[in-house]
């Protein structure tokens, strides 16, 4: 499969005049996004997500390293025909109506005439703004603005969509509407590069994620890999005190308050070890459950770990 | 954008700088004619002894191209000085205004008029010191507006003809006015200026010329009522001049005795009475000058905008003259209100009283002739001007005679 987005050792340092210390917004970032993926780009505020996206679009020049989009260097003008971008809390000319804004963006792609008109109508229907198409944007709600933002991002029927925090500041209903839209895009076979600090969005829609903190990549992989990684919960009975002490050495967590002891271990090999330890002493294993962590937990865990260092 | 493209663009930008400098050098010399009154140099110089400093809001106005408006506003303010008779302040003001907008023709004519006619609210005064600045000012206006007739004629008629009584100069400037598409009356005034010089035959030729000009215009534009009137007036004047030429031909053989005399009587400090008698019809005027004995008439050659503030020069000629009523004339003078205009700082003063037939009205000239051919007087006949006869009495006064 072709590669939609790729960065190699991407680094961006901002030298602000007022501050003495330069800010490393992105440092040594290498990621790859396959075509057709919904890629979650995660990190707390200030992690460098927006900066990375701006580099990909050619809005910001990297200090070092390289970036490609659809196999072309970032910022390539022809590639921009096949991609689209929804910025973080976007703003559009609010003196225009919905239909005028889309008309403006369609013109930037050189779409014209009847084709333009039908495309705009179609988009307004997709995002559910057809009724309000003649209203000025200054009268739109936040959710409506976000939907017009998505509509402008779809004007050129892009292969790759780059969405920067599309759900920030929206109410739960608008939130889920956006999520449904992204899923629909996935079904159409589009690649989506989705940046967020809100994990609930990503968890439900993304195939793969990268986690960024203070400009550095912490973890990247498929969601299953990341979330499953190493969490097994073993329930067992008839364990004596000495056994429990021994088990503490291999487990990450033990709950021995009741008869049924809960043992958590980090990976499959440790599960075998625990079984081997319990079986000979007459202990009984009730269940072994692979533990899929919530992304929230993983995220908090990782960030905490990194910050400790 | 590729690096190569960027470098090329940068090179083009650098290469365009010499043409910018070159164009500016070509534009600079031509700019003056599009923007008069913008040179800083001229504002500092030549402003007389009261240089005006432009208030800052006016300066701001001139910087952004509103100098004509600023000139207009200053002109309105100058009005105050006219009313207060502060002539020393008028010179720098009008010069400033015309520097800002050298095409404000009315400022030249009204400004010059205020200078040498010296009208103040209390009455008219005739301070001779401002005559030359007024002429100079108009000459400057003419130099700045050489292609319109207005200022030539203004200088000729209002100043040389009416005020000063220099009909040769008046004719000279009227002829210049005539070259710049003037109204009809300019041609007629040339004829009058010739009559005043006693050049009767030239005047007759000019009247004929006037009629010709009117008829030519009528041929071009049959509906021009102005031309019709002009032809009528010119014809009438031509007839009158032809008749007068005959009537006045023999005046010299039977001259009239003017019986002229004039006296000075002090009434109080700077107050005096002039009285006398002369044998000419009503409407004619006796002229008077009362100046420092060492007063030198300023000339255009050694000219300065700074008038001599110590000099006294009361100069009552032409319309300022004392009118004659049934062979007698008298006028009271009170100069105590105008100490600045008439300072009387010297010890000796010369009072001259005379009658000049060239400046007299037609009824008087029917007796005296154009140049005084018909005049005689036992005591005061004066023939110092070749070809002209007039009567003149000179009285020398001390300072205490006046103060």
């Amino acid at each position, binding site marked *: 499969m072709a590669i939609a987005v790729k960065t190699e050792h991407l680094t961006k340092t901002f030298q602000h005049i007022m501050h003495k210390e330069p800010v490393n917004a992105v440092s040594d970032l290498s990621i790859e996004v396959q075509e057709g993926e919904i890629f979650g780009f995660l990190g707390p505020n200030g992690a460098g997500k927006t900066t990375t996206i701006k580099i990909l679009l050619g809005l910001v020049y990297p200090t070092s390293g390289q970036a490609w989009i659809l196999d072309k260097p970032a910022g390539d003008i022809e590639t*921009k025909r096949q991609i689209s971008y929804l910025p973080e809390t976007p703003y559009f000319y609010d003196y225009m109506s919905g239909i005028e804004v889309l008309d403006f963006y369609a013109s*930037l792609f*050189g779409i014209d005439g009847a084709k333009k008109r039908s495309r705009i109508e179609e988009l307004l229907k997709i995002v559910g703004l057809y009724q309000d198409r003649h209203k000025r944007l200054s009268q739109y709600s936040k959710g409506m603005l976000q939907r017009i933002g998505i509509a*402008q991002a779809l004007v050129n029927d892009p292969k790759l969509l780059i969405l920067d925090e599309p759900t920030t500041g929206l109410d739960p209903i608008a939130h889920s509407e956006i999520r449904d839209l992204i899923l629909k895009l996935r079904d159409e076979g589009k690649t989506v590069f989705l940046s967020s600090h809100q994990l609930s969005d990503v968890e439900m829609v993304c195939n793969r994620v990268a986690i960024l903190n203070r400009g550095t990549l912490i973890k990247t992989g498929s969601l299953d890999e990341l979330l499953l990684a190493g969490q097994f919960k073993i329930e067992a009975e008839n364990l004596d005190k000495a056994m429990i002490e021994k088990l503490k050495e291999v487990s990450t967590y033990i709950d021995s308050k009741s008869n049924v002891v809960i043992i958590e271990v980090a990976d499959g090999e440790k599960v075998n070890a625990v079984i081997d330890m319990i079986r000979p002493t007459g202990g009984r294993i009730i269940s072994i459950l692979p533990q899929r962590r919530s992304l929230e937990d993983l995220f908090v865990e990782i960030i905490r770990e990194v910050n400790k260092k | 954008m590729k690096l190569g493209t960027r470098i090329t663009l940068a090179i083009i*930008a650098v290469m365009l700088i010499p043409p910018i400098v070159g*164009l500016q050098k070509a*534009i600079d010399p031509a700019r003056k004619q599009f923007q008069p009154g913008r040179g800083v140099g001229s504002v500092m110089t030549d402003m007389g002894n009261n240089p005006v400093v432009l208030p800052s809001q006016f300066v701001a106005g001139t910087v952004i191209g*509103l100098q004509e408006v600023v000139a207009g506003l200053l002109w*309105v303010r100058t009005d105050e000085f006219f009313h207060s008779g502060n002539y020393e302040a008028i010179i720098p003001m009008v010069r400033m205004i015309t520097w800002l907008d050298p095409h404000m023709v009315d400022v030249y004519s009204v400004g010059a008029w205020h200078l040498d006619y010296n009208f103040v609210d209390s009455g008219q005064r005739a301070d001779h010191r401002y005559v030359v600045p007024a002429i100079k000012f108009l000459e400057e206006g003419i130099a700045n507006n050489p292609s319109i007739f207005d200022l030539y004629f203004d200088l000729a008629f209002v100043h040389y003809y009416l005020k000063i009584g220099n009909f040769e100069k008046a004719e000279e400037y009227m002829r210049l006015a005539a070259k710049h598409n003037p109204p009809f009356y300019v041609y007629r005034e040339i004829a009058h200026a010739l009559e005043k010089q006693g050049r009767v035959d030239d005047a007759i030729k000019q009247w004929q010329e006037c009629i010709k000009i009117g008829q030519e215009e009528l041929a071009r534009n049959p509906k021009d009522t102005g031309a019709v009137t002009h032809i009528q007036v010119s014809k009438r004047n031509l007839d009158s001049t032809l008749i007068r030429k005959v009537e006045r031909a023999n005046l010299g053989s039977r001259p009239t005795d003017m019986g002229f005399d004039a006296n000075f009587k002090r009434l109080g400090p700077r107050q005096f009475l002039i009285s006398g008698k002369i044998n000419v019809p009503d409407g004619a005027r006796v002229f008077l000058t009362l100046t420092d004995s060492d007063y030198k008439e300023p000339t255009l050659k050694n000219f300065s905008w700074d008038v001599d503030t110590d000099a006294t020069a009361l100069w009552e000629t032409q319309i300022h003259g004392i009118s004659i009523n049934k062979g007698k004339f008298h006028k009271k003078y009170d100069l105590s209100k105008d100490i600045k205009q008439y300072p009387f700082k010297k010890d000796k003063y010369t009072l001259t009283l005379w009658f000049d037939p060239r400046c007299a009205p037609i009824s008087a000239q029917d007796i005296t002739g154009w140049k005084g051919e018909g005049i005689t007087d036992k005591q005061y006949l004066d023939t110092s001007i070749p070809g002209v006869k007039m009567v003149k009495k000179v009285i020398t006064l001390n300072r205490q005679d006046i103060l």
Partner: protein
Amino acid sequence: MTMLTIAKNTLGEAMRKKILNIFLLVALAMIAFAVSFASFTMREELTIIKSFGLGVIAIAGMFITVMLGVNLVPQEVERRTIYTILSKPVRRWEFLLGKFFGALATILVNLAFMAVVFLVTVAWKHQWQPEWALLKGVLMIFFQLFLLSSVALVFSIFTTPVVNFFLTAGVYIVGSLSDVTLSMSHGADKSPIVKGFYWLVHYLVPNFANFFTQNPLIHPESVIKNELLYYAQNIIYAIIYASVLLIIAILAFERKDM
């Protein structure tokens, strides 16, 4: 074509800006107000109205241009509309020139409004004889503002709108004082450093004074030599100078982080 789209959009937005409309209305009112100058003779009155009208058009045009120019690009960055535009197939220089020509069109429309009112006012005071020659003055003002807006555009890439406002206004004033700079760059009594400094200022700072050509317009009787040549030189001057400024703007904008 994208340039045209952006230019049209810029014009459309600018014409809706209240502040610019206010300047325009004030200017229109002031031109009409000039009619009330009464204490002059006919000729003087016409002179004052023409001078005042051209002056007001120049000043109002100057303010409109500066207000427009300093915000032209920074505003797009500030409200982040530039991101959506530049992520579309729009080259940075296309965007920049699109904005610039949009601003220029705005200036032209504003000048046209004012010129119409001005011409009608003058014609009304002059027995309804239209004085088309006055349009030459407006044309020169337009090219002056063309140059001025490219100055504002260059500064807007390096500075904030407020700083830019004072910079551009400063350049305008210095460039309007070219009689001072010219006379200071000559003369035997001045030091070479002073003369050199004023030489640079006179020839390298955009010379806005060049474009004031009111004399022959206000006083139609004045005799002008090579009038057409002068206008042509000025227009070429404006175009060449603006080209240099636009190249600088394009190059700086090209490498700027948004």
